Structures are given as structure tokens and as C-alpha cells.
């Protein structure tokens, strides 16, 4: 059972936490009817994808420590939010991730080695597979939210049944673009899903200092759009909520703001030390023991006889191999040619870029560094 008075609740809602939609309890009990909407194979898919991403995330942190990738933004603890939301989308849907949502991007079709390339600061790390609409991770906070309004607006104009999903954190809800995006989406009823992973902190600032609102989902009311607060560590609840948001969008009912309440066990990035501003160990332990998205689904799957130790071991082995293969591919990927910095500034290269490129080329040739 969940302990009361856990430390992170305060950061989430400054006091009593309002009701949130939950399907699967931390003990692995289903408490809402899921009406056959989530069948066994989907459950296993959800589980395996979460496991894959956790393995990927841990591996990435190690790679950063070994100096094989640059600064990295971990998401361990948020797997249910990222996997659950991304699995509820269709292949043609537009995705606007942040620097922390490579998990969601991978589930939506981004190739693992590209994500490695991104964190290796390779130019080609933000290219998504042909036909996919996964935009590069947004680094400025909240700015991508308005883009998701625009692409969704265009889908609506063109009569295409695609949604656009924007990922963002709790800190993003203080930015003007959060409000402008929700406002535009409400006015034009765009098929946009605003998916907030409220992990309680924006770097060091807890949500109670970020905003006086108790929840993020309540903000939806101000724009007269649909808002839902969901247990972000319950993948069933997340998937059902996003699925419903997709259906609402398809029916022309417009945008949905989803607040997925979650927590990331690790630091903001590999360059950050959370011990300065929070009781990192205590909070992480609490969430791991009481709320972990993977453990909770594993409890359920084990009880139902859908999953066992052996399968787990086999899956982990396969995932490790898969990730290693992608890492190899990324590490073997041709290094960015310095001259590539001049490409794609414009559709057509103008005179000043041509010349500057030539200038660098000559420097490189003289230095013999090319």
C-alpha cells in the first residue's frame, strides 16, 4: 500500500492531492473497468517498451559518464507517461518532444541510434524516419506547444485525421507560450494533445513555487478545453486518457490538456546535482517503492500469468543487445564534417554561406585536419 505523507506530494500540489485518474494501483490491481480496450498483447507491448526505455536510459547515463555521449537528460520513472502516451498515437500523428522525451520519440518511431546521435551532438540526431513527423527536441521551454497547435490546425483545415501531441514539463506551464498555445487551440479547436509530465520540479523549483494552481489540468478550464489529471505512473490510465483525447480530436472536439503526475528518479540532467535542492534519495526511494510504473505493471502481469522471470531475463538480454547494436551504429556513424555547418541554413545556399564554407574548407585543408 501507498504510504501517506510522502515527500513528493508537496511538490506536486502543495497539500492534498486532488483526484487523478488511475486504473492500475501500485499493487498491481485493476480498479477501473478497461472494457477489453487493453488486451494482453497491448499490455505486454507496454511492459516491454517501458523495460526497453529504462534499459536505454540507464545505459545512456553510463555512456555520459564514460564520455561517449554529451550531457544527457534522463527520464527513468516517467516511462509510463512516455510509452503510454506514444503508444496511443497513430503513425501519422505529429510529435513535438522536449529534451526529455526521447522515450516517447522512440516509441513513435524514432530510431534509437538517432537518439544516441542527438546526445553525441551529431547533426543527424534530429532526423526522423521518412514519413514520420517527429520534430527535433525543443530546448527552449514551452515553445513547441504552439507549433503543435499549428500542425493540428493544418490537419483540421486539410481534413486529415491526425493529432499533434506536444510534450512538456510542469515548469513549462509558467511560460507565456503554454497559455498562448492553449488559448489558440481552444479558439480554433485544434486536434492538439498537450501532454504535461508533471515530475514535480523544474530543475530546482518545486511546483508549489512554480504556480499557485493546485493542478495543471485545472488550467484547461480557463481555455474551455478538456483537461484530465492522470496518474502518470499508471500506463493503463495514461494510454486510455491519450486514446480518449485522440478520439475527441477525431470527432472534432478539439484539444485536451493532460497532466500526468509522475517523478523522475534521477537528476535534471547529467550535469545537475539534485541533492542541493531536494532530498533526492528519500524521494526517489519513495517513488521507486510505491509508484514505479514498471514494477506495478509487472505485478499485474505476473499475477495474471502473462509474464515471468524467465521472460524478463530474456527480454532484458535482447534489449541490451538491441541497444548495443544501435550504439555501435551511432558510434560508427560518419563524424559530422565541419563543412556541414553551412548546409540547410536555407533551402538554397546564398553567396555569403558559400564563401564562408570555402573559407573554412581552406583552413581545414591547410591544417590538414580534414
Amino acid at each position, binding site marked *: 500500500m501507498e504510504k501517506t505523507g510522502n515527500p513528493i506530494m508537496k511538490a506536486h500540489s502543495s497539500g492534498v492531492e486532488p483526484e487523478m485518474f488511475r486504473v492500475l494501483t501500485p499493487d498491481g490491481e485493476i480498479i477501473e473497468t478497461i472494457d477489453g480496450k487493453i488486451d494482453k498483447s497491448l499490455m505486454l507491448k507496454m511492459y516491454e517498451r517501458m523495460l526497453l526505455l529504462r534499459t536505454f536510459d540507464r545505459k545512456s547515463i553510463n555512456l555520459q559518464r564514460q564520455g561517449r555521449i554529451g550531457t544527457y537528460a534522463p527520464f527513468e520513472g516517467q516511462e509510463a507517461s512516455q510509452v503510454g502516451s506514444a503508444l496511443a498515437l497513430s503513425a501519422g500523428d*505529429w510529435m513535438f518532444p522536449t529534451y526529455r522525451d526521447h522515450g516517447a520519440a522512440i516509441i513513435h518511431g524514432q530510431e534509437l541510434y538517432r537518439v544516441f546521435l542527438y546526445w553525441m551532438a551529431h*547533426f*543527424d540526431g*534530429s*532526423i*526522423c524516419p521518412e514519413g514520420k513527423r517527429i*520534430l*527535433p527536441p525543443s*530546448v*527552449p521551454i514551452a*515553445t*513547441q*506547444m*504552439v*507549433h*503543435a*497547435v*499549428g*500542425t*493540428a*490546425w*493544418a*490537419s483540421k*483545415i*486539410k481534413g486529415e485525421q491526425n493529432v*499533434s501531441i506536444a510534450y512538456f514539463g510542469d515548469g513549462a506551464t509558467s511560460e*507565456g*507560450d503554454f497559455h*498562448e*498555445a492553449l*488559448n*489558440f487551440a481552444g*479558439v480554433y479547436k485544434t486536434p492538439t494533445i498537450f501532454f504535461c509530465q508533471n515530475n514535480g520540479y523544474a530543475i530546482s523549483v518545486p511546483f508549489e513555487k512554480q504556480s499557485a494552481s493546485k493542478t495543471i489540468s485545472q488550467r484547461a478550464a480557463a481555455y474551455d478545453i478538456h483537461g484530465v489529471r492522470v496518474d502518470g505512473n499508471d500506463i493503463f490510465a495514461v494510454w486510455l486518457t491519450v486514446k480518449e483525447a485522440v478520439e475527441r480530436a477525431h470527432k472534432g472536439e478539439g484539444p485536451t490538456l493532460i497532466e500526468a503526475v509522475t517523478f523522475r528518479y534521477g537528476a535534471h540532467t547529467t550535469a545537475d546535482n539534485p541533492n542541493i535542492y531536494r532530498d533526492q534519495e528519500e524521494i526517489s526511494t519513495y517513488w521507486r517503492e510505491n509508484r514505479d510504473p514498471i514494477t506495478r505493471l509487472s505485478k499485474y502481469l505476473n499475477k495474471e500469468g502473462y509474464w515471468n522471470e524467465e521472460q524478463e531475463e530474456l527480454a532484458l538480454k535482447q534489449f541490451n543487445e538491441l541497444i548495443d547494436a544501435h550504439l555501435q551504429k551511432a558510434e560508427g556513424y560518419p563524424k559530422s564534417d565541419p563543412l556541414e555547418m553551412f*548546409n*540547410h*541554413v*536555407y*533551402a*538554397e545556399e*546564398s*553567396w*555569403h554561406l558559400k564563401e564562408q564554407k570555402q573559407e573554412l574548407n581552406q583552413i581545414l585543408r591547410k591544417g590538414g585536419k580534414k
Partner: protein
Amino acid sequence: MGKNLTMLQAITEALDQMLGHDDRVMILGEDIGVNGGVFRSTEGLYEKYGKDRVVDTPLAESGIIGSAIGLALNGMLPIVEIQFLAFIYPGFEQLVSHAARMRYRTRGQFGVPLVIRTPYGAGIRGPELHSESVETFFAHTPGLKVVAPSNPYDAKGLLISALEDPDPVIFLEPTKLYRAFKEEVPDEMYRIPIGQAKVVQEGSDLTIFAWGSMLREALNAAKKIEDEKGWKCEVVDLRTLYPLDRDTIVQSIKKTGRALIVHEAHKTAGLGAEIISIINDEALIYLKAPIKRVTGFDVPVPPFTIEDHYLPTVDRVKQGIVETISF
């Protein structure tokens, strides 16, 4: 065939033709629909094309530019109107971090064919922050293109080119010239290439580089100097401010050996400095005198009661010509 139009009418005609020509074109902005724009540049378009093509947006520049980026990503051709240049700042982030960089970040996978039109510049007796000319901010941003027409004919042709350009274009409309004069504008959808300056008057003694409303000052000063002293100035309208048309700049210097740059933007780090730099790099040995700048001062554009003292005047330009030629 053509008609005599003001710059404003030429712009409206271009917008009208583009909306009629391609379903993907949408116009977005504050008060541009029912009201037809505060300067009336979108007059009649709302009635003709409806609220979904000529969109009165919420008052939110970041929302407008940001959602237009999304529209452009997903196949539309948005034309954004920002009510006055200085009100672009809330949307500046969207411009420089996203519109300008999308193609680069995605290695050419996604482009943002977006046009942002905005009135700019002083001389209209506007209230505070209605008269700025900060083209440098945009000309300092790789990935953007910056265009500033100085007459009705160019305005129409350049605007059509801007819309057909695969990259984001900031289209700066000199407010002072909106209704200043009329000129014959062809009926058809013609194009003026982005990136090409125009020699509007040939001369041999000095080149004046100008754009936007300063072109009038340049021409007037050149005329007076010719009347008074017999000196013939060449006058070049840059038209595109980024990337600049280096060839035209350099060729003219090779011919005249002297240059004067006239812009109403602040002097420090204004585009004049960039033009001097180009000449320095490419045509220094042709110079017979140091290059002079006649510009707005390095102060916020002052209240309209004294804005005429901020703006380069024909007299200041004349003075610049005299100093340069008699160096």
C-alpha cells in the same frame, strides 16, 4: 496592363492574388479580418476569402508566429501580419529559435515557408514603439531573409517572391510610404527576386545606399546636389537586407569610388556597418574617400514631436554627400 496604386494597395493586391491563386495561403494576425488591418492592408480579403483564410487571431505574437510555424510545417503557406514591428518581440523567440532554425535542425527535412509582414519605421507620428526600425535583429539571424521594399511596384513583386520562398521571410513595410505616392503596378502576379538590389538612379560621383522610406530622402538629396553642384549620385535601393546583394554594392563602388549609407535605424551595429564591411573587403582600393553613414541616432526612437530630428533628413544626407565628395 496595370493600375496606379499606393504601396498599401499593391500589397493588398498581392495578398488577394496569392489567396486566390493557392488554397494553402492563409493570412493571420491581429485585426486583419473584419477590420481589414489597422492600415487596411488586408481590406476586403476577409469578405472575399472568409474567416478561415483571413484569420483574426488572439492578441498573442508568439502564438501567432508559433502556430504559423506549425501550419507551415504541415503544408500551409501562412502569411503573418504583426501589427507594428516593435510588437514582434513577444514572438521573437519563435522567429529566431524555431522559424529560422527548423530547416537546419532537421537537416533539410522540415522547412518553414512563412512570411511575416510588418509595418516599420518612423515618420508617421506614431505613439511610442510604433516607429522602430530594428532590421538588424533579423539580419543577424541565420535562416531568416529580410526584405524591405521602397515602392508599390517592388512591394508587390517582392511579396509574391517572399511567399514562394521556401524559407521564412521578414517583410518590412515602410509605414511612411504606405500611402505616400502611387505608381503603375502590373495586374499580373509578377516576381522580383529576393536578394537583388536595384540601381534606381545612375551616377558617377558617389553611391548612396538606402532602403525603405530612406530611399526618398536619398533621391531628393541626390537631386538637390545635382542642381546645386552638378555632382551625379548613383542611388541603390538594397530591397533585400539579408542576405545583401554584394555584387551590386561592389560594382557601384567600383564605378563611383565613394559611398554614403542612409538608414533610419540606429547607427551602432546598423546595416550600414555591414555594407561598409563589404566594401572594405571587396573594393577598398577603389575608394576615394572614407564611407559615411547618415543614420538614426543611437537613442530609442523619440516621441513624434521631435522624431524628425531623429530621422536622417535631406539636409543631413546632402551634408554627407558634400563631406564625402570633398574629402
